[in-house]
């Protein structure tokens, strides 16, 4: 009888320790997955790194036929579209987050605005691109005709507008959360000193939430850089350095999306994977720094 109980206890203990090991294993697998991912990108770009060297990042010619691979036009294209998208989205997402966070805390219009943000966040990227092709591009083309520029329609401006629409829900929801974490007592203190709500927002909430909001913008910027499909459909695929915001260009991700399937030569493929490596570093940088700042801010808040 005693023996049997001991046996059961032992088997339970065995199961317990196995389960604990399984949990640790799952954590380890993530670490391996992540390192494997990075190593794969790195080893597959080695060929391109030895072929192009540092000129990969500084040369402005991308010509697979002549085996010259310079990613500068794509780096610039990515930067310009993302910065422009951030600038377009800035007033809207700021207004939205202050409006919902401070002025309209509940009620019909808050529900409408909140569910619209959720709806906007739920529309797949490829559908934004499709809609952009049929609605935004013709409008841009008219503007270009009016201004007397070559009417491409597709280009940096078209993709930035769609990109802005896509990152607004993301950045608005981060800043809304940050604003909601500002302590109630300092807001009330400002109001009781006779400040108008406008003064409370600009002189108390925004200074207090500054670094959190900044982190939100960094993360939205990372989002904009990593966005692929809508941009691929709207950017116009030109491998030259863009001369204006109307000109067609290419971003890191759109080049990969367009050319990866047709890259037959080893060096061509490796150069595209090096683009992915660069993209990986840039987006990881922005999202990790953003997360770090926001975590630190939340601890202090």
């Amino acid at each position, binding site marked *: 009888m005693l023996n049997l109980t001991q046996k059961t206890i032992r088997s*339970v*203990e065995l199961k*317990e320790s*196995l*389960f604990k090991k*399984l*949990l640790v294993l*799952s*954590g*380890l697998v*993530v*670490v391996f*997955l992540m390192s494997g*991912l990075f190593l*794969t*990108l790195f080893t*597959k770009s080695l060929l391109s790194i030895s072929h192009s060297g540092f000129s990969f990042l500084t040369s402005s010619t991308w010509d697979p036929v002549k085996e010259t691979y310079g990613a500068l036009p794509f780096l610039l294209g990515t930067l310009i579209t993302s910065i422009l998208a951030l600038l377009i989205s800035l*007033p*809207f997402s700021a*207004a939205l987050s202050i*409006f919902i966070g401070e*002025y309209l805390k509940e009620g019909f219009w808050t529900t409408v*605005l909140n569910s*619209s943000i*959720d*709806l906007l966040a*739920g*529309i*797949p*990227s*490829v*559908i934004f*691109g*499709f*809609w952009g*092709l*049929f609605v935004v591009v013709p409008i841009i083309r008219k503007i270009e005709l009016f201004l007397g520029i070559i009417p491409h329609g597709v280009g940096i401006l078209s993709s930035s507008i769609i990109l802005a*629409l896509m990152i607004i829900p993301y950045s608005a929801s981060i800043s809304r959360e940050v604003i909601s974490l500002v302590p109630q007592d300092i807001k009330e203190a400002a109001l009781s000193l006779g400040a*108008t709500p*406008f*003064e409370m*927002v600009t002189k108390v909430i925004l200074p207090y939430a500054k670094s959190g909001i900044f982190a939100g913008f960094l993360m939205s910027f990372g989002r904009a*850089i*990593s966005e*692929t*499909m809508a941009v691929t*459909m709207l950017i116009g695929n030109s491998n030259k350095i863009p001369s204006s915001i109307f000109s067609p260009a290419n971003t890191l*991700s759109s080049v*990969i*999306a367009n050319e*990866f*399937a047709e890259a037959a030569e080893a060096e061509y493929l490796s150069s*595209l*994977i090096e683009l992915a490596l660069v*993209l*990986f570093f840039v*987006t*990881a940088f922005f*999202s*990790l720094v953003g997360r770090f700042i926001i975590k630190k801010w939340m601890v202090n808040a």
Partner: protein
Amino acid sequence: MIYDASIRYRLLKDRLFKISLGVLSCILLMPLLFILYYIFINGITAFSFDFFLELPKPVGEAGGGISNAIVGTLLLIAVASTISIPFGVLIGLYLSENKTGKLPDITRLCIDTLQGIPSIVMGIIAYTWIVIPLGSFSLFSGAFALSLMMIPLISKSTEETLNLIPDALKEAAYALGAPYHTTLLRVIIPSGKSGLCSGILLGVARVSGETAPLLFTAFGNPFMSVDLFKSVNSLPLLIFNYATSPYQDWQNLAWGASLLLVLFVLSLSLIAKVVSKR
């Protein structure tokens, strides 16, 4: 008198600020409503029995449907969920059980990084890890790329949900003599069930519209295919290919597919919301 003027000025500024916030928010609503309206109007005309039951027809022939893309999308989601749900939940469990420590912190950092990786890079990874060794584009490689994106989403939502469960529950289970695994699997996970389900549903909703990771993995296929190791079509891929084609018939199919996809994604997030409120 002077006081009155300055106060009136400040109140005016406040009023203007509030109005401009409202105006900006409403301006934002317009393109959104317009996108939904545009998708609905263009998509609804494509809906018919054939649309759901037939295969795409060659250019020039009227009619045809997208049944292969519908089946493909469902299969991709099913396989990706099979890979990522158990895995994601286990990681979430591990992280909520070990709040401090070196390995949990590193794991958390890896999850955060994984979540920030552009979807197209996931496609490249699935291409080099699965498509090249197996020698062909396949449903499996596409599902793998999608599951790489789902794992961080599911594990984070699991961790957040389980962190909210009071320790008293766990202590009660221990006090009754329940072993560690029984406590976690029979007490902790069931009490976080609704949060887990809504996290999983949101994860599925998030990846079901993804196109970029499928470009060089699932690749697309004009025929019906349910083979795990053959290329397969999916709604987002079909939208991308047909939207950029010059043919009116194909663009109409793409609008129909867009409406279907938006309805699918939105109803998933709606269900997730209802589930999490319980």
